């Protein structure tokens, strides 16, 4: 076998993987979005932009879009702040740093569905350990305790926090890598120049970490915007669509509601948004690139 053939054989699995599992479904989704495909129907007609027109007029789509934005912005704000603080805490060596790093990484390593089912129990209306502790501490009376997943705002907050719990480790690892790339003389020079902790943080450390923060943010936005596991397991979009996001709405409409065309149109709506976000973030990362 020549080198060229061997190369092609070695390369083939990756190409097949991309074509079968990413390329083909993507092309199919684009086709469906411009058609009237439905589950259980053999008819297939191209209908142009009709599906997009109809979902834009749908109140549940608008609600889901709004929820997706709230979900993503809030989750990312919390993730970036927490992972910056965590990366600072975990940067300097201390006695059990290795163990703490492992524990912090666990939520990312564990399967998302298992973790979320765990949270579903923690936030359950009857068995919630959080509610139990709050009652025990006399913050609430029994039977008047909050329904974490049953009240619109609390449900959204719960979904956001569980998603943060899952994403913070990932972001922390990226931030740690970014911080360790800053030469130690730079903060030392700042301290000699007279800068205190906050000035060093806001004028030196964070600006120098901008490229890596952009990468963490880009991944975070993509993961959050496209995530439906946490929403689907915790609330399935409820109560009253208050936690419905675009991916969960696409699933509910396209698969559960049999309207493949509308589901595909909702999913595709995310693509230009995410492409724009990715382009913008990569530009920021590139512009802020240091020596």
């Amino acid at each position, binding site marked *: 076998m020549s080198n060229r053939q061997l190369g092609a054989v070695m390369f083939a699995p990756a190409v097949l993987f991309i074509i079968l599992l990413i390329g083909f479904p993507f092309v199919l989704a684009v086709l469906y979005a411009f058609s009237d495909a439905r589950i259980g129907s053999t008819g297939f007609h191209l209908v142009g932009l009709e599906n997009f027109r109809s979902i834009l007029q749908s109140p549940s789509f608008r609600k889901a879009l709004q929820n997706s934005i709230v979900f993503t912005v809030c989750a990312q704000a919390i993730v970036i702040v927490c992972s910056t603080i965590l990366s600072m805490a975990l940067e300097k060596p201390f006695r059990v740093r290795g163990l703490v790093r492992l524990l912090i990484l666990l939520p990312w390593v564990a399967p998302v569905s298992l973790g979320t089912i765990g949270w579903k129990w923690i936030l359950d209306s009857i068995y919630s350990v959080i509610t139990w502790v709050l009652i025990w501490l006399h913050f609430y009376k029994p039977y008047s305790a909050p329904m974490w997943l049953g009240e619109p705002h609390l449900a959204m907050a719960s979904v956001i926090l569980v998603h943060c719990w899952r994403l913070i480790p990932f972001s922390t690892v990226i931030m740690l890598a970014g911080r360790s790339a800053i030469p130690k*003389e730079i903060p030392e020079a700042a301290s*000699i120049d007279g*800068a205190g902790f906050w000035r060093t943080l806001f004028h030196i450390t964070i600006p120098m970490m901008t490229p890596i923060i952009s990468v963490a943010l880009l991944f975070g936005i993509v993961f959050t915007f496209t995530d439906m596991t946490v929403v689907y397991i915790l609330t399935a979009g409820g109560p009253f669509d208050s936690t419905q996001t675009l991916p969960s709405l696409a699933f509910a409409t396209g698969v559960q509601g049999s309207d493949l065309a509308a589901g595909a149109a909702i999913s595709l709506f995310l693509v230009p948004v995410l492409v724009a976000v990715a382009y913008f973030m990569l530009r920021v990362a590139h512009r802020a690139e240091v020596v």
Partner: protein
Amino acid sequence: MAVVETRNLTKVFKEGELGAVNKVSLATHEGEFLVFLGPSGSGKTTLLRMIAGLETPTSGEILIGGQVVNHLTPRERRIAMVFQSYALYPHLSVYNNIAFPLKAQKVPREQHRTKVEWAAGLLGIGKLLGRKPRELSGGERQRVALARAIVREPAVFLLDEPLSNLDAKLRASAREELEQFHKSVGTTTIYVTHDQVEAMAMGDRIVVLHQGVVRQIGTPKDVYEDPADTFVATFLGSPPMNLVEFSDVIVGFRPESFLPADLLPGAKHVRFRYKVNYVEYLGAERVLYGAIEGRHFESKEIISRLSWTMPAGYDAGSVHDFSVAESDLRFFDRKTEKRADPRPYPWQ
């Protein structure tokens, strides 16, 4: 301007191990250019970092301007430091790099431009203020680091091998500029280097360090001509001082003092038979590697350094009469390796 003093300063990184800096006591003079010279691992940078406040001493005191500063943070010590890597802030322009200490110390904003331009002008980088550090050459970066250090007119300058990242040609000119710069600002400066040429050329006094201990403090002439021990004798000078052991004493003499006997008429001198093994031609000089022939020092390796003005004929394999002026001999105790009093040399 201020005097920096250390009293029994010690730094032990790991308990039970030898200290990186051991009981160092020294004091600068006002406005002096003091050089810490030593090989890698001699503790010179650790000593400087303790003075800067970047390392906490295990014991001992640091005084700046007569005041104990052990408990003060770097910014409270009124010092400025230039790092080996320059540590410029890569995301800030040259202007903002130089202005950073002013902002950090809350100097009124309207004074920033004047002060930055003054510092930049002094170092000839006025035209670079809009650039980012990555757009500068090594020499320019070094000047920006110096400008950032002088802009708030500190009491003391600490320089950690600031020339080691420059190429040989640039280093020579930067050395000269740094000397001129020190003369013009007159601030007490502590300069760390492992390069003896830099130390000799720039220092008002040199502190020779080895394994965290001060071996000698003196002017360049003192440490070169009258080394306090065999370490200083061999660390300074290239090639190093020749050392020959005789009973309880070590006798040292510089290669440039070990010359053909007929070139040393008159003065009292000590004679040796010298066999040249190998000659290194270095343009302005020749370095002879050879051995003494004679009862006491048979085969002892000795180096001689001859100026290019001296006659040729000292080729490999040839044997000659060489001698050293008595006044150029240095004596060290064989046990302690410390400097000893001159004594008769009965080996002749």
